[in-house]
C-alpha cells in the first residue's frame, strides 16, 4: 500500500547521499562511448547486421530460386533501402535536436513557437507521395504474382496440398500428363523450370504453406480452396514449414520440395506404386502393417472416401486419423514431417516411441500398437516392420 506523504513546500537542490557510486559509473560509461570506442562499436554492429542477413540459411527469404520469391524480395529490398534512408534522416534529426538543443546553464526560456504551417504541410505531403508511389508498385506486383504467367499456362503441374495436424499430404491429380495419380507425404517432388499450381486444403485446422526460397506463404484454410504457384529455377532441395500456429506440434510440421530434373521426375512417377520386392522379413512386416493400415496407406493412391472416413472417425473421438501415405516411403529422405532421416535407427526410435522424435504427434496418442506408451510389438517385429517400410519404393 502506498503511504502518500503530504506535500511540502521547497525543493532541495541536492539529492540524498547514496552509498552506491551510481553517478560516477554513469559518467565513466558516458566517457567510454566516445571517439574510437564508439567507432569500433559502430563497425561491430554494422558487420553483425551484414552477417545476419544469411541468404544461405535453409529457409532464408534472401536466397530466392524462383520468380515469385524473387519479385517479393525485390519489393522488400527496395522498401528496405527506403526504410534505411528514412531511418537515418529521422533518427538523425532526433539525435541532432537532442544534442544541439540540450539545456545549458543559465539559458533563458526558448522562443515559444507553436508550429509552422508550411513545414507541417511539407512533411505530410512528401511521405504521402512516397507511400502512394510504393503502394502503386506493390499493387502491380501483387497482381503480377497472383497467377502463373500466360506463357506457362499450358504447362502447369497441378498439386493438391492438404495440411494435417502435423504433416503435409501431396496429391498429384495428373503427375505426367497421362492421368497418373500420386499420393505422397512431406516431400513434394516437382520438375525444374515448370510452374506448379498448388491447391491448398485442410481437413482439420488452419495451416500455412511456405517455401521461403520459392514463394511467400498462403494459408491452408478448411472450407477454402486457396491457391499458390511457384516455379523453381534450379534443381535442389528447398525447405518449408507450417507458418500458422496449428497446435502442439506446429514447430514440427516441416516439408521439403525436391526439385528434380525432368528425367528424375519422370522416373519417380513411373515407379510410383509398383508392387515392391519383399524379402521374407519384409513379408512378415507387411502382415504386421495390417494394424497400421487403419490410418496409413502403403499400396498406392489414397482413396478419398477412406481418408474422409479416417477424419470423421477422429472427430468422433475414435483412435483413427488420416496419416501419411507410405507408398514410396523408402524413396524419401526424411520422415515425420521432415524431422528425421529415413534409416533403420531413426525408424526404430520412432516406432518404439514417436514422441521421442515429435512430441504430441497423433500416432503415439492413437495407434493401436501402443499400450501405456509402450509398443506392443517385440523388437523382432519392429525390425520386420522397418524392413517392410524400407522396401516401399
Amino acid at each position: 500500500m502506498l503511504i502518500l506523504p503530504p506535500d511540502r513546500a521547497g525543493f532541495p537542490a541536492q539529492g540524498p547521499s547514496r552509498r552506491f557510486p551510481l553517478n560516477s559509473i554513469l559518467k565513466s560509461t558516458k566517457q567510454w562511448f566516445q571517439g574510437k570506442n564508439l567507432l569500433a562499436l559502430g563497425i561491430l554492429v554494422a558487420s553483425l547486421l551484414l552477417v545476419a542477413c544469411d541468404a544461405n540459411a535453409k529457409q532464408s527469404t534472401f536466397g530466392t530460386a524462383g520468380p515469385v520469391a524473387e519479385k517479393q524480395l525485390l519489393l522488400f529490398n527496395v522498401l528496405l533501402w527506403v526504410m534505411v534512408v528514412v531511418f537515418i534522416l529521422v533518427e538523425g534529426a532526433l539525435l541532432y535536436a537532442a544534442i544541439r538543443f540540450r539545456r545549458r546553464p543559465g539559458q533563458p526560456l526558448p522562443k515559444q513557437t507553436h508550429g509552422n504551417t508550411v513545414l507541417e504541410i511539407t512533411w505530410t505531403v512528401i511521405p504521402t507521395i512516397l507511400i502512394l508511389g510504393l503502394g502503386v508498385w506493390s499493387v502491380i506486383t501483387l497482381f503480377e504474382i497472383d497467377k502463373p504467367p500466360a506463357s506457362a499456362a499450358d504447362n502447369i503441374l497441378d498439386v493438391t496440398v492438404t495440411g494435417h495436424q502435423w504433416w503435409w499430404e501431396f496429391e498429384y491429380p495428373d503427375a505426367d500428363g497421362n492421368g497418373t495419380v500420386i499420393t505422397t507425404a512431406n516431400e513434394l517432388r516437382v520438375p525444374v523450370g515448370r510452374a506448379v499450381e498448388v491447391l491448398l486444403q485442410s481437413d482439420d485446422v488452419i495451416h500455412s504453406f511456405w517455401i521461403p526460397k520459392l514463394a511467400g506463404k498462403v494459408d491452408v484454410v478448411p472450407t477454402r480452396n486457396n491457391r499458390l504457384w511457384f516455379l523453381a529455377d534450379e534443381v535442389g532441395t528447398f525447405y518449408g514449414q507450417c507458418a500458422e500456429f496449428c497446435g502442439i506440434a506446429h514447430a514440427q510440421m516441416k516439408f521439403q520440395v525436391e526439385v528434380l530434373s525432368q528425367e528424375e521426375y519422370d522416373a519417380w512417377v513411373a515407379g510410383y506404386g509398383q508392387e515392391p520386392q519383399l524379402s521374407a522379413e519384409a513379408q512378415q512386416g507387411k502382415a504386421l502393417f495390417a494394424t497400421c493400415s487403419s490410418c496409413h496407406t502403403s499400396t498406392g493412391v489414397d482413396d478419398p472416401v477412406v481418408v474422409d472416413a479416417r477424419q470423421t472417425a477422429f472427430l468422433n473421438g475414435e483412435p483413427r486419423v488420416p496419416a501419411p501415405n507410405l507408398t514410396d516411403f523408402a524413396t524419401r529422405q526424411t520422415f515425420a514431417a521432415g524431422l528425421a532421416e529415413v534409416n533403420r535407427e531413426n525408424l526404430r526410435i520412432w516406432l518404439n516411441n514417436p514422441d521421442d522424435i515429435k512430441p504430441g504427434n497423433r500416432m503415439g496418442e492413437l495407434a493401436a500398437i501402443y499400450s501405456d506408451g509402450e509398443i506392443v510389438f517385440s523388437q523382432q517385429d519392429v525390425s520386420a516392420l522397418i524392413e517392410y517400410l524400407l522396401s516401399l519404393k
Partner: protein
Amino acid sequence: MATATDVIARPASASGLWSWITTVDHKRIGILYGVTAFMFFLLAGVEAGVIRMQLAVPDNTLVSPDVFNQMFTMHATAMIFMAIMPMGAAFFNYIIPLAIGARDVAFPRLNAFSYWTFLFGALLIHTSFVVQQVPDAGWFSYANLTEKPFSTGLGIDFWALGLQVLGVASLAAAFNFVVTIINMRAPGMSLMRMPLFVWMTLITSILLVLAFPVITVGLIELTFDRLFGTNFFNTAGGGDPILWQHLFWVFGHPEVYILILPAMGIVSEVLPTFSKKPLFGYPVVVFSGIVIGIMGWMVWSHHMFTVGLGPVANSVFTITTMLIAVPTGVKIFNWIGTMWGGSIDFKTPMLFALGFIALFIVGGLSGVSHAVSPSDAQQQDTYYIVAHIHYVLFGGSIMGIFSGIYYWFPKMTGRLMNEGLGKLNFWLMFVGMNITFFPMHFLGLNGMPRRIYTYTSDYGWDWLNLLASAGYFVLFAGVAVFLINFIKSVKNGQVSGHDPWDAPGLEWTIASPPPVYNFAKVPQVVGLDHYWLVKRRAEAEGNPITGPEAYVDPETIHMPNTSYWPIVTAFGALVLAAGFLVEFPWPYIKFPIPFIGGIIAFIGVLGWSLEPAAPEAHHGSEAHH
C-alpha cells in the same frame, strides 16, 4: 430489496483495506489499476523469459511444447489485456480528472466497478494455472483450432470467459472517460485547449467503446460453439474459421491504437515540458490522432494478407495500411519540431519519451514493409513480425508508460524518483530491448516462423536467438532497477513540491499528492498550456507562483461517497462467467452457477441504484430524493 438497501448505509471507513475496497476516488482507483497492472506486467515478463530461455539454443528441452504454447499465449494475453491497457487506465484514472480540472470522474462508482471487474477477469484467466488447464491457442486464438475436437480441456474456455469479463471492465471505463472528458472539463477548457494526453485518452476511449463489442461477439460465438455445440467456427458443421479472424482483427487493429495512443499522449505531454516549448503544431498532432483513430478501422485485413482474400482485397488493405504511416509520421515530425529550438532537460521522463520516439520509428518503418502484401507474404507469422510488434508495443507503449510513471510519480506521491537509478533503468531497458528484439528482424527474414517451441541448428538461427535471449537479462535488469527505484522513492524519495518540472498542465497547480477533492476551487482555464500561461504572467507581474493551491477543509467540499456495490456487482459478473467452467450432469440445467452470479450482480445493481447518497444511515425521504 428496497428496504434492505435503505438500512445498509454507505461505508464510512477512510483508511485501511476496507477503504480501498469501497473507494470511488479516481486517484485511489488509478493506483489500484497501476499496481495490479504492473504485477501482471512482471508475470507476463517472466513468461517471456521462459519463451526466451527455451529458444536460446537449438533442440532445447527446457519446457515441453505444451508449456511453451501456454507461455506465448499467456504472455501476450496478459501484456495486452492485463498490463498495457490497464496501465493506460491507471493514468486515465489518476490524471484525467486532474488534467481537466475536475474533482472526480463522471461516474465514480462505475469507475470502481471497472477496476474490480478488470481484477476479477484477470484472476479468472490466471486461475487456469491453478487447475493446470492453461489457454494455449495464442492471444489471437484462431478458430477452428479453438474448437472442441482440437482444443479439449478448459484452457480456451478460461480465455474466452475471462476476456469477456475484461471486456465489461474496459467498456465501463471507456464510457466513463468519454463522458468525463466531454462533460467535466473546467470552464475555459475548450476541446482545442485540452492537453494532448486528454485528447488521446478520449480517442482511445471511443475506440474501446466501438472495438470491444466486436470481439465480444466473437467470444460469445466461440463460447457457444464450445459449450452448446453451435457451429459458428466449427468447419465440420459448416462454420467459417475466417469469420473469427475478421471479428478478431476488426477489434484487434483498433486495439493496437488503443495500446499506443495513450503512450503518444504521454510523450506529447513530456516533450514540451522538458523542452520548455509548447507542442509543435498542436492542432495537427490532435487531428493526426483522430485520423489514426478513424483509419485504424480500415486496415484490419493486413493481419490476414495470407488468408486468401484475393488480390483486390489485399490491394485495398495494402494502400490503407501504408497510408496510416502518414499521420503517424506527422506526429513524429511534430515531436522533433517540439524539441527543435528548445531547452532540453534530460530528466528520466524525457529519456523515456526520446526512447519512445527512437524505437517507434523502427517499428513504424518495419510496419510499412509488411503493409505491402507481396512482401508480407514472406514476413507474415515470422519473427520479423515479432520484432515489429515489440518495437511498437515495448519500444512504443511500454517506453511511453515508463515515461509517464517517472513524469507523474511526484504528483502521485509528492516525491521524485531517483534520477541516477532512473537513467540506469532507461539505458538498461533501451539497450536490452534492442539486443532482444532487433535480431528478431533477421530471424524472421531468415525464415524462422513465430510460435515454434524448437528449432534445429541447421537453419542458421542459433546465434541470433542466443543474442535475443541474452538481451532478455538486460531488460530484466532494467525492470529490476525500476522496481528498486520505485520502492526506494515512495519511501525516501526527494520531496518534489507541487510542480517539480515547471509543467504546463492543470494537475501541477495543486498539491502533491493531490488532496482528496483535487481542486479547492474549480479552475478557470486561460488557454492551452494553462499553468505555463499563469506562471509566466505571474512572473511578469513580479509575483512568481511558489506553491500549490492552498488546502481547504475537505468537509466543506461534497465528494462522492464510498460504496460496497461496485465490488459486489463485479463479483456477480465473475461468478456469472466462471460458472460456465463447471458443467453439471443434470438434465436441462447444465450450468447452474451462472444463475447465482446473475443474482449477485442483480442485487449489486439494485443496491447500487437504491444506495443512499450520504455515508450516514439515512432513512426515508432523503434516500429517495
